[in-house]
């Protein structure tokens, strides 16, 4: 039996195991181990069980992951998000749909110090959802706004997804972060336009709030300060060459810790934040370990090469290949976690992307936006489930209905970035 055939059998086995509720990390590890042992031999496969965890966990480039998570957790636990939301609300709250706009703006700014979409959605929902409901916002608009707003965390730097993509494909982490900035902000603008159009078409979706004076607006802006200062420290430090993007995570986490302590966080609160950080980090590293073992198998199975040859033989245009890959991402995104999907699929499709002549950094941005869609599309939208936890009386169907206009907005953004790569590559 050829290596590629064994490869496809093992990938099939992996999908079956995933479908019967076996954790994604474990299915990748099992398929990788069995496939490698089948193609090479059992003893070398056992060696992977030493190499994969040791090489992965002592890889300095992975060290920002727990730091970026810690930043988000500290910001959330020290209630920085409350101050941020009330600041944004003082700017837009009086407009029809203004609280939704404030929530979106808060999500965008919160994303600047949180690398995780789920953390962004959870932190902002806790503060903004009760306010929107209190002011008579339709459940679909309130929950849809927050589920979609949370996805900004995956694109606006620092982003764990962009970091992982950079490490998998050996791109510069700094370049990936810079490339994510404009598409992330574009997402924020398009989401805001979506809310504005929605409330224009259906005014009953949201009521105008209380007007605020100029002084209240200026005071409210103070709420944005902690976030902007941490963001400026991170991005400014990288730009000025004071530290590397890898080191920026630790600097950012420390800056956020200082703000959290100033806001009253004590030892017990810090320990709780560390615990939450480790639970999330362990989840990501379980998947990275599984993907690493799977990666050893992928390289000996030569599946990627077979795939490139196969696609070559089909004589498809580069853009048809791109659309096929994005369609695959969208389909997988419906049932799979975004980070898991990136770890699983990027090593397989990346050679295809390179062979088609696409810029790897630009493709990373396009891939992450597509993966991001999976966070809010049915049946498995992680952000939707997070919002559901905060709005137990709202049906999942109603949240998905609210999210749909934002999905369209994301598709528009995707089309714009495919049509105008400069949107992603302009800052490089």
């Amino acid at each position, binding site marked *: 039996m050829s290596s590629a055939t064994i490869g496809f059998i093992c990938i099939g086995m992996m999908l079956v195991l995933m479908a019967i*509720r*076996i954790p994604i*990390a474990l299915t990748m590890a099992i398929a990788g181990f069995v496939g490698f042992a089948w193609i090479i031999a059992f003893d070398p496969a056992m060696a992977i069980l030493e190499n994969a965890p040791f090489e992965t966990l*002592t890889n300095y480039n992975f060290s920002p992951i727990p730091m970026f998570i810690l930043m988000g957790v500290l910001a959330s636990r020290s209630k920085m998000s409350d101050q941020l939301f009330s600041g944004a609300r003082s700017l837009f709250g009086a407009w029809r749909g203004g609280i939704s706009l404030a929530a979106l703006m808060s999500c965008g700014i919160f994303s600047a110090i949180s690398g995780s979409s789920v953390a962004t959605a959870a932190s902002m929902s806790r503060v903004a959802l009760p306010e929107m409901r209190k002011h008579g916002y339709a459940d679909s608009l309130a929950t849809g706004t927050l589920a979609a707003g949370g996805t900004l965390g995956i694109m606006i730097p620092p982003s764990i997804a962009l970091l992982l993509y950079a490490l998998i494909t050996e791109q510069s982490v700094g370049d990936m972060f810079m490339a994510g900035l404009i598409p992330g902000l574009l997402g924020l603008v398009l989401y805001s336009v979506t809310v504005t159009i929605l409330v224009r078409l259906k005014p009953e979706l949201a009521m105008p709030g209380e007007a605020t004076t100029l002084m209240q607006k200026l005071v409210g802006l103070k709420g944005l300060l902690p976030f902007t200062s941490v963001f400026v420290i991170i991005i400014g430090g990288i730009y000025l060459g004071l530290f590397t993007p890898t080191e920026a995570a630790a600097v950012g986490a420390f800056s956020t810790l200082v703000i959290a302590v100033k806001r009253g966080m004590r030892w017990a609160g810090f320990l709780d934040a560390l615990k939450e950080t480790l639970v*999330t980090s362990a989840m990501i590293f379980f998947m990275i370990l599984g993907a690493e073992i799977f990666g050893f198998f992928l390289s000996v199975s030569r599946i990627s090469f077979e795939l490139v040859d196969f696609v070559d033989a089909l004589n498809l245009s580069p853009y048809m290949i791109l659309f096929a890959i994005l369609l695959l991402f969208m389909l997988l995104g419906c049932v799979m976690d975004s980070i898991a999907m990136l770890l699983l699929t990027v090593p397989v499709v990346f050679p295809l992307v390179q062979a088609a002549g696409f810029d790897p950094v630009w493709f990373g941005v396009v891939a992450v936006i597509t993966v991001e869609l999976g966070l809010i599309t049915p049946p498995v939208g992680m952000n939707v489930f997070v919002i559901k936890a905060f709005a137990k009386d709202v049906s999942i169907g109603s949240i998905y209905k609210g999210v749909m206009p934002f999905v369209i907005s994301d598709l528009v953004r995707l089309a714009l970035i495919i049509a105008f790569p400069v949107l992603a590559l302009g800052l490089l």
Partner: protein
Amino acid sequence: MSGFVRLVDAISRGMLLISGLLVTAMMLIVLADVVTRALFRLTDGSLDLTFIGGIELVRFALLFAILYALPWCVDRSQVVVDLFTENLSERGKLMLESLCFAGYTLLAIGMSIRFWQAIGHAQMSGETSQDLMFPMSYIYAATLLGTFMLALRSLLVTGDRLGKVLGVKA
């Protein structure tokens, strides 16, 4: 048996605390590295507080921070596709969970065997780390503790889930 389960849980919690401290240490080491480097540059080299081995310390801190968190997190940090098993009975789900944790047990046993062998090899060859010259046998031994505890905790969680399926109290 329940006393042993409690002991393993307590050790896992203790290891999680060590993980937390290591994450903090990682942050402070990188910060110290950045600050001393900046001072060196600002003073044109007259104030040299830079130190060797910062990257290596962070690498090992990351290794143990994550590895020592895994035993406690093994049943708390998993991502599953539950679309196709949503309507399965609770018993069926527990059965599948026991299968999953049995898988983790085997995986962690495999890792432990390899790290056990790695300790022997490192002792014989006198292998040390690159910058700080730590004996690698110690590093592998500390790694083995993490994978062994992961195997033990996964085994106990498997037993717990199977016990629930069979209606037996662990």
